[in-house]
């Protein structure tokens, strides 16, 4: 049986549903290119900010039992570098999604237009960084702000627009408003604000004290949010959080995701994880008699 793993993500054709999540190896062209070569269906850049950012001092990560805490601090070379990065990163037509983290609507707007002009295949607005002041959760929690932001940008760019949300009380409202204003899809979810203390040092591990929790810990929460968004809005979703194997990925797809963001597990398994997951999904489809992966999107809502 030949099976089709390709998906259409708001108009973008992906050869398979795996996407390199934003911030993982994503601020250098050669790493994005390597991710594409390693089998990802699309790649996301690290979030660009208006001005370059050094990021936080080390320790910027803390390994916890159920995942990873990070406080990289949006280290990036500034949005002006994206043109060069996009052109050098492009290979074999693998779509490049540019992630943006502005500190106000104007910054977001300019960066989005620049991304469009620079050849990005889509833009993802990071509304949910849990450890950087003014560029994080506060934005994503305000439905009016998000609606204005999306409305504003949507009128100025030609490529698909995604918003990236985190776990907030009102994500349903925020996403609803964003979709109303023309957002093409939702990336769910970002890391969750958390903390780790070393009991011998008797200090928080991260130099920034707080970090974002990712990995297996957040997977069941991301599944819930994906399920909710699909159930209510039939939204186009990039399900992200704790994907380590094809079962985690398939859980997202059944819940309603069109594609799957992969981040933390790359630190254990390297970029080849995309190939492994794709192989697993193919095998699953053969076993379960599913010809087109797209038929599985949101399947639990129909079953």
């Amino acid at each position, binding site marked *: 049986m030949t099976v089709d793993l390709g998906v259409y993500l708001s108009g973008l054709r992906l050869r398979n549903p795996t996407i390199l999540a934003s911030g993982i190896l994503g601020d250098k062209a050669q790493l994005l290119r390597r991710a594409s070569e390693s089998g990802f269906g699309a790649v996301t850049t690290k979030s660009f900010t208006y001005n370059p950012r050094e990021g936080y001092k080390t320790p910027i*990560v803390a390994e916890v039992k159920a995942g*990873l805490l990070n406080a990289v601090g949006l280290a990036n070379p500034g949005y002006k570098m994206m043109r060069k990065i996009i052109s050098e990163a492009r290979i074999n037509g693998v779509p490049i999604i540019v992630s943006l983290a502005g500190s106000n609507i104007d910054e977001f707007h300019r960066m989005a237009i620049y991304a469009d002009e620079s050849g990005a295949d889509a833009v993802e607005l990071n509304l949910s960084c849990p450890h950087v002041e003014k560029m994080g959760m506060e934005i994503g929690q305000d439905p009016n702000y998000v609606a204005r932001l999306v409305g504003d940008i949507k009128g100025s760019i030609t490529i698909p627009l995604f918003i990236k949300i985190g776990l907030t009380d009102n994500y349903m409202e925020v996403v609803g408003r964003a979709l109303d204003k023309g957002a093409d899809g939702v990336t769910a979810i970002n890391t969750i604000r958390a903390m780790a203390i070393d009991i011998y040092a008797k200090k928080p591990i991260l130099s920034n004290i707080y970090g974002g929790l990712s990995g297996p810990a957040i997977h069941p929460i991301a599944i819930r949010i994906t399920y909710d968004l699909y159930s209510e809005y039939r939204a186009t979703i990039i399900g992200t959080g704790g994907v380590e194997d094809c079962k985690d990925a398939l859980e997202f797809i059944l819940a309603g995701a069109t594609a799957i963001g992969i981040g933390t597990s790359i630190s254990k398994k390297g970029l080849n994880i995309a190939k492994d997951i794709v192989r697993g999904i193919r095998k699953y489809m053969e076993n379960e008699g599913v010809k087109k992966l797209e038929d599985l999107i949101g399947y639990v809502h129909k079953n």
Partner: protein
Amino acid sequence: MSIGYRDEAIGGESSYTVGILKRIYVHNRNLKSLYIELNHWLDIKPGQFLMVWIPGYEEIPISPSYSDGELIRLTVKGVGDTSKKLINMNMGDRVYVRGPYGTYFKIDDRDKYLLVGGGYGAAPLIFLAHKLVEMGLRPKYVEGVKSISEQLFIKEAESLGLEATLVTEDGSSGIRGLVTDYIVSILDNFDSVLACGPTPMLDKVLDLCRSRGINCQLSYESIVKCGIGVCGSCTLGNTGLLICFDGPVLDINTLNKWRYRGSD
């Protein structure tokens, strides 16, 4: 003197292994070897690195110059805040380490090895020398430094029964010149070069080995922040190789595959 407690005694896992400074060897005011006892056993292979954290300071990557799993030796040069703090610690002070991370020198016991260390880059090589001697091999050990005051492990290599050569830039001891110039003359006697040191030195070694068709494994440095292959800060030159994940030890085939031409 004992470490006072063992990690296993209390149960559970931490992010960090606690190390207690047990002995300090002063190579010079700015370059010291720290003997550190760990509160639990770590399996560290020569070439791999640890992330070493001093709370209140940063966390930096260090390739141990020796480890028996419980006692490790870090040979550190003070270059910035954290490394300077590290070499100025007192006996009994604690450091916190995670790892080991990264690749290590792969040994094939038929090979005739040339070990080349530049500055504190000699650290993983002297550790490797111990292992090779345990395996019954007799590599040649070459250490290149600016001046005699920076000499590290020549005596240790000799005490292992190895032929050891010191090369100083200023000629204050041993052979005068650059270590990369020195090895040109002897390179053809070896199957494989294992080296660690400043990037320009390694780039030169790579060139030499490429042009002569000699194998090599090189331990490169770059800015390591996460140590676990997620942050992307540690690429080698323009390649997509991550020093913390694909490296630090990279063999010539990998470097060729990535068309590595040296970092400018």
